Each structure stands twice: as C-alpha cells, then as structure tokens.
C-alpha cells in the first residue's frame, strides 16, 4: 500500500497541539475537521469498519508515540459525537460503546454498491454475502473485505430504497439485487 503510516495521511498527527482540545472555538472547529478527515482516511485505508470505545487506547490514530501525545477520553467522546453528527458513524448499542464507521456516507455506499452490481449486470441474480465480500470477482470493488455488519447495513439501505432483497437461507446470508 502507498500510505501505511498515519503521518502520511495527515501531517497534523505530528503536531502536538492536535492532541489538545483547542479552547478557541474557531480553532477547535478546524481541529475537529482535521481529526475527522484523518480518521475517515485512516479507516478507508485500513478498511476499519467498526470501532469499540473500550479499545480506543489501542486505536493507532489516537496516539503518537513519536511526540508522546495521546487523546484523552473526553476528546475521543467529542470526536465520536462529531463523527456521528456528520453521519460517519452509527452507534450499535445504547451505551455508545460500539459503532459502525462509514468512511463513505451510507447513501454513497448504497449508490456505489448498486452501481457496481449494475455495471456487472448482476441485477436480479442472487449472491451470497461471502462471495460479494471475499470473492475474487469483487476484488476491485471498494466494498471488498469490509466488515459484514457494515455490508448488511448498506444492503438494508438498498432494501429500503427497493433496490435489493436480503434473505437468509440455511444460515447463509444472501441478497438479490433488483
């Protein structure tokens, strides 16, 4: 992969004030913008689709050993709330411990997946989740190898639009694009 280090995604990560919540509101807005784009870029790059708050301290963007800085929990909460308000994460539980991460928005995801299917003429065919996520054919698709939970969420969105039907048969999940 081209960019593997976080510093390659955003030079801000080596900037110590990046890890302190800025009291000046204008500055803070820009700081949160920078954080959000860094996090989403990182997740896209590493195909990180879920996040558990309990593992926050192990989440690489949240610390930088080189400059000996790390985010405190308060800052992480503010960041997650910011991402949620932008539609980039969705809480999976009421306690707000686990969430899905949409580095593309849900609409974008749905559009992308449906376009990919249509371009392959796979409408009206039935596919299993497994072959779509891990099959050789989808290696070029950006949903290749993403988390099944995220994929199911995308398909549900398509279902809402009347563009897909999700069903379960013999323990295997399948989908039929319309």
């Amino acid at each position, binding site marked *: 992969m081209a960019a593997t280090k976080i510093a390659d995604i955003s030079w801000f990560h080596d900037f110590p*004030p990046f890890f*302190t919540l800025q009291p000046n509101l204008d500055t803070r807005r820009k700081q949160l913008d920078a954080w959000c784009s860094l996090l989403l870029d990182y997740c896209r790059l590493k195909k990180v689709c879920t996040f558990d708050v309990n593992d926050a301290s192990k989440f690489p963007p949240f610390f930088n050993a080189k400059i000996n800085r790390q985010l405190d929990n308060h800052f992480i909460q503010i960041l997650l709330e910011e991402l949620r308000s932008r539609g980039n994460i969705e809480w999976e539980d009421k306690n707000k411990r686990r969430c899905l991460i949409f580095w593309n928005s849900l609409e974008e995801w749905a559009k992308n997946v449906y376009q990919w299917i249509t371009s392959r003429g796979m409408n009206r065919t039935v596919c299993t989740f497994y072959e779509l996520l891990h099959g050789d054919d989808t290696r070029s698709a950006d949903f290749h190898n993403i988390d099944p939970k995220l994929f199911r969420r995308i398909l549900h969105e398509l279902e809402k639009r009347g563009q897909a039907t999700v069903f379960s048969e013999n323990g295997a999940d399948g989908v039929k694009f319309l």
Partner: protein
Amino acid sequence: MADRLAWTDGQLHVGEALVTTQNGVSINDGPEKTDYQKGSIELTSHRILWKDKSAQVELTLSSVICCEKKDASIISKARLICTLSRSQTKRPGPFASSTHDEIQFEFRDGGCNEFFRLIQEELAKKRWSVQPAKPTTTMNAAMSDRSHRTGISGIENHLQHQLNVQHQSISGAFQDLNNLMQQAKDMVNISKTIANKIQEQRSDLTSDETIRFRSYLLSLGIDNPVTKESAGSQYHDTNGIMTLSDAFCRINRARGYELISPEDLLNAAVHMEQLNLPVRLRVLSSGIKSFELTNHNEEKDLKEITNQVESAKSMSADQLANLIGIPVIVARERLIAAETNGLLCRDDSIEGLRFYPNLF
C-alpha cells in the same frame, strides 16, 4: 540676690541678639559691694553679661522681675536695681547664697539712662520666652526643678517634659534625615554628570556598557526619577505592559529615597486614565493589575509574539518571559490573548502548556 549670677563663657547663644554694651559697671549684691568692680556689661535679648579681666558672669533676663533706676546722688553713682525671682535653680556661679532679693548695677562711667531704657524694652519684649536660646541647660534645669513638684501640676509638668524630650529627639532625627537627603541629592547630581559624560563620549563606550552602567546606577537607586530617557532600554523591554508590582519596585528603586507606598501607586494608577496620561491601569484576565501604555497596539503586539513563537516553533509562557523580559504571568496572558485571536494554538500535556503557531 547675687547667687542668681552664673559663670558664662561670654559667648552669645544661638538666637540671642546683642543690644548694648557699657563699660565701668560694678555689681552690688543688694547694697553690698562685691568683687566685681568696673567691668563691662552687655545687654542681650536674653541675658545681662558682665565681664572683666578675671571673670565672666551672666544674669538671665527671665529671672528679672523688675528693674528700677536710682539716679546719681552725692554719695553714690547712678545705679540699676534689678529685683530677681526665687524660682531659679542654682547654677554654678560666684555666689553660693545671698540674703538679698535684688542686684544692683552701679554705672561708674555713666550710660545708666540709656541702659535702663533698653533693659525696660527687652523686659517688655520677653524675647527669651519667644525663642529660647541654646544651650538648653537653663531650660532643662527649670524642668528638673518643676518635676520636684507634686500633685496634678507635677504630673502635668512631667508629661509636658516627656513631650518636650520626644519632640526634641524627633526633630533631631529629622535633622539627620535632611542631611542624608542632601547628600543623596549630591550623589544624584554626580551620577547625572557621569551619565551626561557618557552620553557625550558615546563613541568610546559600547551601548551595552552604557546600559549596564545605567542599570548599576539604577539599582543603587541613583538616577533621575524614572523617565523614558533614564530607564533606557528597560523601558521598552516591557512590551507596553508592566505589572503594578514590577512598576512599584522599579519606581521605588529609581527614586532611592522618598519612597512611595503600594497604596499610593494603586490610587495613582486608578486616576491615570481620567488624567489622559500615556499610561493606564489594566486588569489582566488573570486578575493581575498592570500598567499599559495608552498607545499600546494590541494587534501589533500579539503579532510580534506570534512571530516569536513561529521562529521558535513552540513556546511556553516562561520561555517567552525570558525571551522578551516580561513577567511570566504577563507572558502567559499575552499568549492566551494571541490564542483567543486565533493566532496561536495550545498543546497541553504532562510536559506543560505550550503554544504553537495556529496551523489549523
């Protein structure tokens, strides 16, 4: 009453004025002749002095109750008869005791009338009571005499005496202070002269040395009152802001004497703005009171601080304080002000609070 006569050195005391002199005067103790014949007599504002080759005696006018003239007759020369009071203590004099209430001055060589006229004048003026002449031995003697008395007046006298002693010691102390101030003024003049010379020969000295010399003088408390010129470079180092406590130290150090109190400074500071002075009081966000130049350009100042931070990449309050020579608390205030204006951003870690250029 010749026991009122006391030995004297014949010198006029401070505040005492000579009125007249007359030769050929003898002293009689009452009607009896004494050894003091044909001397010269001096009338002063405070005393009658008599002297001949062998002796000098004095009679204080305050002890003279009244004075009469007895014109010359066949058997005697013209004489003055001075009736004396008893209240005086015995001071060392030629006569240990006397049975008479009066003392007579016999004018062998004339001049009695003139002398009589003048002594009447002096007794009427009572100049000795208006301006007591020194030495004060007479006074102290009178005091100790009174202190022997008992009763309320005795206590009052005692208190009065204590007051007098205190007053004397206080005025004595201030006398010393005045001398000190006089000398300090001389020092100031010397230092001014030196400073002027330095200015004239500036080419010989580097500006660094000049500044150092001036700061020495300043730290000795010898300089003109603090002015832009006298404080020199230190004046500008403060970045237009100086805490009241700093200002207090510097002002008093520069004054060296006649110091001002913190309260005076604060009161003065409060009025500065109303008086349209170039300096005004400003309370920093931390609650610290400070002086600020009225023409102080906040924006430019913060820009400069930002430049300092930029060239150093990052900076803590005490680094900035060291760099531009301002108190840490003011430095911190300045950095936060720059942050509020969006020029800087902060890094708050276990290493402390540091400020960076705002790159967001």
